[in-house]
């Protein structure tokens, strides 16, 4: 199977996918209610899409293609409300966050669809371990070569996206000490990590052809890269974020990526280098482990600072682009995260107050559902 041609898309348009947790209102454990929820939302008109995911305690909401923050946040609200109304009707709570704090992976049930059964057979328990909840952000690109350029330039800032969205400190009943423990589950997949350093689409097609030739992959979907091109949409897809605790934060992070992309395409105009990736896994680990406090090493200057400082610096550089994109409010929210902390800080503080992970989960659901 050859690679799809890169579809045209409006540059810097955005789209957001969010994987959400479905919870029982009795104990706030995950509940396998995706089939019931999907049957319920089918009846209601809503923008975007609502889809099943790997296991039956997950549901995914996708926005349509958006240009700016206000439209994005409005559509995410509409999607959230449809899902939450269905949840209330069915005694199911809905929440953000990258992991469920005390679910047992072995209790999860694979969603009844051929693709998910296939993945479950291939990956075994990894498929059930994959009951984790991420945010994917699509950025429209003028062409395939520009898409590859943007992908490699954004890779430098992957720690920003991880640290801002991090909201998964608890796994299987314990504090892991990580800001985003969710990504540890992604790294266990054989085709995770970063895309190869290829700068033009012809080369990328050749790489893809060789990979399919080996029989390792069948489609782009088999690559679990942190950022990957999505030729059928004409976008690149940033996949490292945890689902944040509110839709507003989700929209703000998407717009932060959007404004940064505009800065890269319009103002920065520097070519990516393969050596940029020397610090990639180190920086990414620091972001997963320590969040905003993590160390960030600049690949070109080798300067060390905290991820928080690097984001503050970036906010200054992209301020004009954010204004152009009507994303000033989104940038304010990003600044708030730098001061008040990310989802992981909120979760740890709440746990310190409540001493009970089920209570944390209940408050997390109330936060998401907007009561």
């Amino acid at each position: 199977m050859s690679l799809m041609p890169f579809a045209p898309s409006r540059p810097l348009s955005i789209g957001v996918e969010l994987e959400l947790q479905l919870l029982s209102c009795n104990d706030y454990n995950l509940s396998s209610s995706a089939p019931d929820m999907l049957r319920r939302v089918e009846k209601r008109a809503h923008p975007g899409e609502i889809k099943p995911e790997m296991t039956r305690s997950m549901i995914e909401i996708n926005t349509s293609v958006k240009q700016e923050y206000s439209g994005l946040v409005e559509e995410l609200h509409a999607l959230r409300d449809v899902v939450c109304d269905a949840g209330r009707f069915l005694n199911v709570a809905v929440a953000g966050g990258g992991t469920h704090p005390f679910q047992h992976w072995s209790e999860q049930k694979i969603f009844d669809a051929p693709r998910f059964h296939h993945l479950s057979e291939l990956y075994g328990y990894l498929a059930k371990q994959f009951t984790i909840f991420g945010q994917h952000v699509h950025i429209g690109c003028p062409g395939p070569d520009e898409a590859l350029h943007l992908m490699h330039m954004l890779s430098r800032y992957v720690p920003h996206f991880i640290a801002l969205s991090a909201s998964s400190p608890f796994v299987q009943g314990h504090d892991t000490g990580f800001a985003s423990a969710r990504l540890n589950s992604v790294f266990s997949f054989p085709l995770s990590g970063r895309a190869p350093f290829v700068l033009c689409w012809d080369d990328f097609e050749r790489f893809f052809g060789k990979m399919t030739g080996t029989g390792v992959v069948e489609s782009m979907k088999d690559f679990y890269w942190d950022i990957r091109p999505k030729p059928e949409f004409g976008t690149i897809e940033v996949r490292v974020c945890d689902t944040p605790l509110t839709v507003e934060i989700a929209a703000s992070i998407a717009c932060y990526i959007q404004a940064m992309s505009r800065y890269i395409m319009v103002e920065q105009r520097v070519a990516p280098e393969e050596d940029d990736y020397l610090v990639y896994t180190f920086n990414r680990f620091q972001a997963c482990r320590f969040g905003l406090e993590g160390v960030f090493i600049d690949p070109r200057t080798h300067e060390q600072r905290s991820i928080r400082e690097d984001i503050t610096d970036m906010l200054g550089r992209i301020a004009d682009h954010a204004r152009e994109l009507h994303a000033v409010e989104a940038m304010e929210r990003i600044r708030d995260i730098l001061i008040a902390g990310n989802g992981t800080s909120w979760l740890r503080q709440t746990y310190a107050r409540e001493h009970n992970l089920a209570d944390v989960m209940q408050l997390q659901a109330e936060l998401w559902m907007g009561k």
Partner: protein
Amino acid sequence: MTWSAYLPVWPLEISPALWLALTLVVAVLVGEVLVRQLRLPRIVGYIGIGVLLGPGGLGLIPQLPATEWRLVIDLALGILLFELGSKVNLRWLKANPWIAGTSLLETVATFVVVFLLLTWFEVAAVTAAVVAAIAIATSPAIVVRTVTESRAQGQVTDRLLLMTALNCIYAVIFHKLAVAAMHGQTGVSFVHTALQPIYLLGGSALLAWLFGITFERIHHYLGHHEETFSFVLFGMIAFATIMASTLKLSPILVLLVAGLVTRYQRKRTRTFPPHFGSAGAVLVVLMFIANGLAGDLNGLRYSLLLVLLLIAVRTIAKLLSVLALAHYSGIGVRQAMALGLALVPMSSVALLLTLDTAATFPDFGSGLGLVLMSCIVILELAGPIVVQKALQIAGETPDKKT
């Protein structure tokens, strides 16, 4: 000194408690065999052994004093009812009124078809009403126990628990009213006919509310120490059960409503160990054995046809009611079939209501009461299996693999 001073006298004088202890061991072993060999619920074994060894079966176990048994049943049922009430989220009814509608329809349909069947068999109207009221109740004991044992969760499980709690409340209320009507027929003055159910329902509600409030206070004080909390709770349930009987209120109503009140008032959810710890679990096992021992199949001789028809129309009424509103309440046909069937079990609540009626009206006990007892024995034995299969059909039990 003679031999008899320190050696037991032959034949041995064995207290009934020994037989009881032995029955407990045998019943638990049989329950284990059922689970491992046939994948049937354990409680089928407990009840089955009770029926088999009890006075109604082989008669190996001598009749035990009714009051002692009654205490075991009351306490264990109290635990299960409180457990059921505290698992049920009444706020759900506001978000999804179709579930309340389904519950009402199912209750009324069951009452009406059983009533019509009995009047067709030329049973007096008041007596028919009493039996029809008892037939409304789904067994909370079997439902809670089977859900716990099968670790089921999902729409059917949640609705089953909710609708069981509701139809038990309806059954007790209908039953009290029907019994009041029965008193009215025996020439008791109207004042007593009317006041008795009012006292009973009002008093039970008040006691339940006080229990709920006290419970929350203690819970707040003890906080997260769940084991200590289970012990306190256990004592409170025993206290409330005995208090309710002493005040001639309905222990069933008090404990069930107390559970609902605590759950409704609580801001955070709490999970407790099943049956609030192992002491509760032992009582529950004993209760199922006791239910079996109390089982009386003489009704089959009285009228086999009526027993079978009663079970059939009751099942159909519950099943069709759930199916009729399934679409509006947000479940599929398969789930509705499972839910309708899972509402079928009868056990402790029906048993206690029947025994209470028979104690007041001996004629009832030797007549229709026998028919009802036979229905209860059959639905008690079949009930756990039906609930287990229904939850499996609905896909709400854990995956078998891994």
